[in-house]
């Protein structure tokens, strides 16, 4: 009779969860059972582990083996526990000395030939383990080393792992996947010709964390403009970089051995499913696109083409910065604090809704706009029209400022926001606006007349003031907001036309 307990971990959502793999081997009908709420892929470990152990040259016990994955009340998913199960079986059946695996944690999937394969989520897994020494697949080694603390051993096969543990051979020194620390090439704003207003809107969005809606016909360059936004945002600090890296690792993306230091840009297609966008789905609670965009930019092209249910689901992350996915057995909280940039065609005909020129039948326009709920449109502090630039601007127009120049101003504005106790002006609370965004008498009159005209709601009023604060910050203007700041903020917040001549 033998017993062993080996530490390992799985990933649920974006967090690692420690799992103790306990094995009990005793006389009885030979066989292996796994208990402790394994899911299908986890239960299949039984067959993989047996084949891998035999392939490694070790003896498979003829005792009755019971594997318990503790804590046994939570569901275990994935194949990351394969390696730990194999080690526990070998120790329990006396093939390996317990002394050899003391204080070592194991993570990895096993192949039938004994190879050790990479698993998604290595960063949160290693982070959760808190072990002194951890054995991981070669392919995951560089990512695992991003977590400060444990000593990372990487192995390619179970055979060489056993040899190293028994002290018969030194730990293998595999070629690790190369570290890719080169700065990902960012697209520069100076490559955009014309479009002065949209460029300014991007700058304001980056500086103040204001969500941006671009309205324009196909081919106007909305995607090109949006893809330049991450380059304007300040690089991620250490804590954010770690958080973002954990999320991307949990989603199964390799980090190439470096923390993600640039704000990510995610641009899911409108045919994407609810689960792939919001996250959840299986028991593993994989993070969706909105979590992948955490601390970065979520770009939704063709906003009106997204299913209304998906768009409604965006409202929680837009408000709280997290997604809560609740399932019968457990719940996960996925971080999702992103800058939302969306693009849409004003109408199907592509004339951008130009009064007097749009040829869309009225019903088509109404149907098109009905897909966008008012509350969602209301979250866009900046709503600008993007028209196709004319030929002269495309060919001859002078290049605008480069991303680095704009990024400097953005960083300055973000500093001012930090001094006000928020990450960006968009997060200023309504009650703090009197203090941080007072207005001059002239600006007050402008706001009052706009309110009276019914074009601005009370909620919109606060949003306009926050944007105006950002505009002033970028211009280095300290003090009360003038009419020019408020006027510009108002003009950068176009009403969305619902059919000919009618506003909403």
């Amino acid at each position, binding site marked *: 009779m033998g017993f062993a307990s080996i530490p390992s971990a799985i990933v649920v959502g974006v967090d690692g969860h420690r799992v103790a793999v306990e094995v009990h081997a005793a006389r009885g009908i030979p066989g292996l059972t796994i208990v402790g709420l394994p899911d299908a892929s986890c239960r299949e470990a039984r067959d993989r582990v047996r084949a891998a152990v035999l392939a490694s040259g070790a003896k498979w016990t003829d005792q009755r083996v019971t594997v318990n994955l503790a804590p046994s009340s939570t569901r275990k998913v994935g194949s990351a526990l394969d390696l730990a199960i194999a080690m526990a079986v070998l120790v329990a059946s006396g093939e390996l000395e317990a002394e050899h695996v003391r204080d070592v944690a194991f993570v990895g999937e096993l192949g039938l030939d004994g190879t050790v394969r990479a698993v998604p989520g290595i960063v949160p897994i290693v982070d959760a383990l808190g072990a002194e020494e951890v054995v991981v697949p070669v392919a995951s080694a560089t990512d695992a080393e991003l977590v400060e603390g444990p000593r990372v051993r990487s192995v390619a096969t179970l055979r060489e792992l056993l040899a190293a543990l028994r002290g018969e051979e030194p730990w293998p020194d595999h070629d690790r996947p190369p570290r890719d620390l080169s700065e990902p090439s960012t697209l520069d704003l100076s490559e955009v010709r014309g479009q002065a207003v949209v460029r300014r809107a991007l700058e304001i969005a980056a500086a103040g964390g204001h969500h941006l809606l671009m309205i324009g016909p196909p081919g106007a360059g909305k995607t090109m403009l949006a893809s330049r936004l991450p380059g304007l945002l300040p690089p991620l600090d250490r804590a954010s970089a770690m958080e973002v890296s954990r999320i991307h690792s949990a989603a199964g993306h390799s980090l190439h051995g470096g923390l993600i230091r640039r704000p990510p840009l995610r641009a899911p297609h409108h045919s994407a499913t609810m689960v792939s966008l919001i996250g959840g789905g299986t028991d593993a609670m994989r993070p969706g696109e909105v979590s992948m965009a955490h601390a970065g930019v979520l770009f939704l092209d063709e906003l009106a083409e997204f299913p209304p249910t998906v768009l409604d689901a965006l409202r929680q992350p837009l408000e709280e910065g997290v997604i809560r996915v609740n399932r019968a057995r457990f719940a996960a909280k996925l971080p999702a604090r992103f800058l939302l940039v969306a693009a849409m065609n004003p109408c199907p005909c592509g004339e951008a809704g130009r*009064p*007097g020129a749009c040829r869309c039948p009225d019903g088509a326009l109404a149907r098109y706009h009905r897909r966008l709920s008012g509350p969602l449109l209301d979250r866009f502090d900046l709503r600008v*029209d993007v028209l196709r630039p004319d030929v002269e601007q495309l060919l001859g127009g002078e290049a605008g400022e480069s991303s680095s120049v704009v990024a400097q101003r953005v960083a300055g504005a973000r500093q001012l926001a930090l001094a006000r106790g928020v990450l960006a002006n968009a997060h200023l609370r309504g009650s703090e606006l009197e203090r941080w965004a007072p207005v001059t008498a002239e600006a007050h009159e402008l706001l009052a007349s706009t309110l009276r005209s019914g074009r601005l709601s009370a909620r919109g009023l606060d949003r306009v003031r926050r944007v105006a604060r950002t505009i002033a910050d970028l211009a280095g203007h300290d003090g009360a907001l003038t009419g*020019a700041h408020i006027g510009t903020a108002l003009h950068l917040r176009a009403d969305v036309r619902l059919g*000919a*001549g009618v506003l909403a």
Partner: protein
Amino acid sequence: MSAFAAAEPAGDRRGLACAVALSALEGIGPATVLACVRGTGTGAAWDAVRAGRPQRIPPIAELVRRRAAKEPEMAQRLARQAAAIDPVVFLERHEAAGQRVAAYGTPGYPERLRNDPSPPAVVFWQGSLVGLDRPTVAIVGTRNATRLGCDTAARLAVELVERGVSVVSGLALGIDGAAHRAVVDRRGAGVAIGVVATGLERAYPRRHELLHRQVASTGLLLSESPIGSDPARWRFPARNRIIAGLSDAVVVVESRSAGGSMLTASEAVARDRTVLAVPGHPTSPASAGALDLIADGAVPVRDVTDVLVAIGMGGCEPVGHRDEAAAPAPISHLAARVLEVLEPGPSTLGELVVACAAGIEATSTALVELEVAGHIARSGGWFERTAEAGSARTGRDR
């Protein structure tokens, strides 16, 4: 209504009911019903259709034969539909809804349509027909109008009703709606005559529901479609011929080259009515049709006097001069430049920044100045001149 109905012989009432019921059948248009009214009589036609033997009635037989390729079973389908309708009960439904009904050639049928080349077989109306006894001018145009176009339509409409002219229009979005809204808002000034394509019980477009009700209660709302008629495509050009038929002159304020208002204009020409058009900027797509009309000989409208002359009221004393009001406040140079750029048509902030070669804040400030002064208006992300913009003076001019 009951007194009116009682004055008629019972047979005529059944004829009217059958005419209404025939118009409700899918596939039978106003021309066919009219042919029945003029020919065998609608009672006989209804009985034949109901019995599944429309071949006995020449105009319907012709229709069934023409449609045979598309719908071989049309006679049976008509019979099935007709079986579900009791003509007299159906007619009473209209009366209960406050609608008045008259068939072509019977007393009560509007005088102006009596000699029309293609008059409606039956007309339904709510409100009073007195507006038709005055001079009438139709103001029509595109649904997707510019702000300037809507302002012009509204101003013309008000100036016409103030001189005792009734304004006819189609209650569509854009120009039509702007003209009638202005008339309705000037309560008591004059009569709005709305001609709609659907049944009177149904406001189409729905956004004009209030206007629809107001025109019905203060003016005249008229249609040739019975209750339950959907806004099918063919009904709109048909409606336009009634607008032309009811009017002494037709003013097209804004229309694209292939717009429905062009049809109204050609229907007016066919009826020997004067067609007028408001000249717009040559590059504005919204004015392309109006300019085509002028090129083809329509009378350009500079102000309401041109319209009055066209309907023989040229000598009318103007009711009052609003234009003689205090001189408008001067505007800044950049604002004047913005107004200039906006002359051909609406622009976005982005286009204005480029065209004025000014900064975003500066342009924005100029826009605020113009908006406050009422020279421009905003719709969506677009800025447009209003009718007031013409009077703007720069500081430089003084």
